[in-house]
């Protein structure tokens, strides 16, 4: 006895196929919508900011008058922050990754560190700001300085570097390490000469990702006490500072149209820095990959 009626199946088929095609276009449309938002965002920023984005903007200090205002102080502040963040985050992050992948035994402590890093990655950035405010600014007495801000950002991006470096190290084929150890190289020599070089492209990508995050971070720096108005260049790492995202924040919340255009100009500068950073990463990665092959 047949329960499936071919005619019914065929009749129903048309509707089902139409639903499928319709759904496909809806899903595709939604995906395109998101791209449209990205385009609108960029168009908006460039149309607002290009008028102010010039040499004068890059080489002058903040001003109460929009037409005189520049971003030199925050630009230098951001660059100096990176000088603090890069070595500290990289040494801590890659060191932790090497430890977890190559030295740590599979015990509860290792598991604890890994879980801990995952949790740390989920902590809101502003909470890192509170940590920095208490520990670096007050307890260590650094004050609201570039050093305090940089250390805070370094801890913030640490999980990103650890996780990506771990993945990169894990992806190095075992036979390479075994070959090196088999030739009598010590463990550290193997890591230094074999594992790290071949994991380098991956580690680099993760590091750039982390730095991109650090450059754009605003909230923790506000909490640590970054300044919103700077008309001097910091003379050292213990000085007060402004950073590009903070300056953008400060301009954005002004009610005057001109300042919002300045904010857009600041965003253009930040996006350019991000693009340069990421393009360098891509270029370096390709170069390293080619060298290895």
């Amino acid at each position: 006895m047949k329960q499936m009626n071919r005619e019914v199946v065929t009749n129903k088929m048309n509707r089902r196929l139409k639903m499928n095609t319709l759904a496909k276009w809806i899903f595709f449309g939604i995906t395109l919508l998101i791209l449209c938002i990205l385009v609108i965002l960029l168009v908006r920023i460039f149309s607002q900011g290009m008028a102010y984005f010039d040499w004068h903007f890059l080489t002058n200090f903040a001003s109460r008058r929009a037409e005189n205002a520049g971003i030199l102080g925050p630009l230098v502040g951001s660059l100096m922050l990176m000088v603090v963040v890069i070595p500290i985050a990289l040494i801590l992050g890659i060191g932790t990754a090497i430890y977890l992948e190559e030295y740590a035994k599979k015990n509860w402590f290792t598991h604890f560190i890994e879980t801990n890093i995952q949790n740390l990655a989920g902590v809101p950035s502003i909470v890192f700001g509170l940590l920095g405010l208490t520990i670096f600014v007050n307890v260590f007495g650094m004050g609201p300085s570039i050093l305090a801000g940089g250390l805070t950002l370094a801890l913030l991006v640490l999980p990103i570097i650890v996780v990506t470096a771990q993945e990169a190290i894990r992806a190095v084929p075992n036979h390479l390490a075994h070959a090196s150890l088999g030739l009598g190289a010590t463990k550290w020599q193997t890591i230094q000469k074999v594992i790290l070089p071949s994991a380098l492209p991956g580690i680099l990508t993760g590091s750039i990702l982390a730095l991109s995050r650090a450059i754009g971070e605003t909230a923790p720096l506000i909490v640590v006490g970054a300044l919103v108005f700077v008309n001097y260049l910091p003379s050292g790492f213990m000085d007060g500072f402004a950073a590009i995202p903070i300056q953008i924040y400060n301009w954005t919340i002004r009610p005057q149209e001109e300042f919002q255009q300045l904010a857009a100009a600041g965003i253009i500068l930040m996006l350019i820095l991000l693009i340069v950073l990421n393009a360098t990463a891509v270029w370096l990665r390709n170069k390293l990959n080619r060298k290895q092959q």
Partner: protein
Amino acid sequence: MGERQYKSEIRAHLASKKKGKWFERSISPLLTVLASISVLTTIGIVFTLLKEAYHFFQETSVWDFITGIEWTPFFASDPKYGIWALVSGTFTITVIAILFAAPIGLAIAIYLSEYASDKVRRILKPILEILAGIPTIVYGYFALTFVTPLLQEVFPELSRFNALSPGLVLGVMIIPSIASLSEDAMTAVPQAIRQGAYALGATRLEAAIQVVLPAALSGIVASMVLAVSRAIGETMIVTVAGGSSPNFGFHPMESVQTMTAYIVQVSTGDAGYGSTLYYSIYAVGFMLFLFTFVMNIFSRYISRKFREEY
């Protein structure tokens, strides 16, 4: 190279290696120290929040804090610290964000994993990554100067600072992570299971919705929970476009204040070190930490506990 010369070189090298033994042995402890910094960071965060919040609760009752719905810390006389005013502001924006982002993120995930060709996927995924990589202050700028005026054309009663605009923009910000984590979960469903559905005459849509989606559900839910956690902790969008009016309740069209926005408000003001106002941001920060921590643990629990063994 002669054999003798070769051997002597090896011997010389081995001799030099002996000298390096202490170095070799010091590496493991050194790396252990580096790795424990991350643990110290977590301990530092919890310790800092608890210690400074403790000062705060010397002045304010814990009970009033966790049950109160009025938040008036700047009142000179009888300031009220009822966290629910800030929590409701946070949740209002988070709910708007997730309601906006979840269906869109899921639709993108379905498109990428079930419909798109490899070529299309290779183009779309980096663009999603760009969206995910844009600093949040940029989204804040976009919300305040573009989305709010646009929404005001549609809803004239919308105030300049409101929950709707930052909620939607926050949604845009978390879409990439929902899309990419959900896509990962769906791609992890074996091709064989899809083929089983296709072989019964299922269309792509039917296979995606009835077979792949349920099989990937734990990963998808986990991605949503993670997105909620990120939305709760997001600061700049809500600070710039959400306003600073801590009102209890769900008021999407009006100015609100989130937990994060409050911390920024106090940080940019001139609250003196050691004042109740100063300590209050740690109490708020602790609540924030608690919420996101629980969400993150929950997200990982779901994806581990309910993961299908294919």
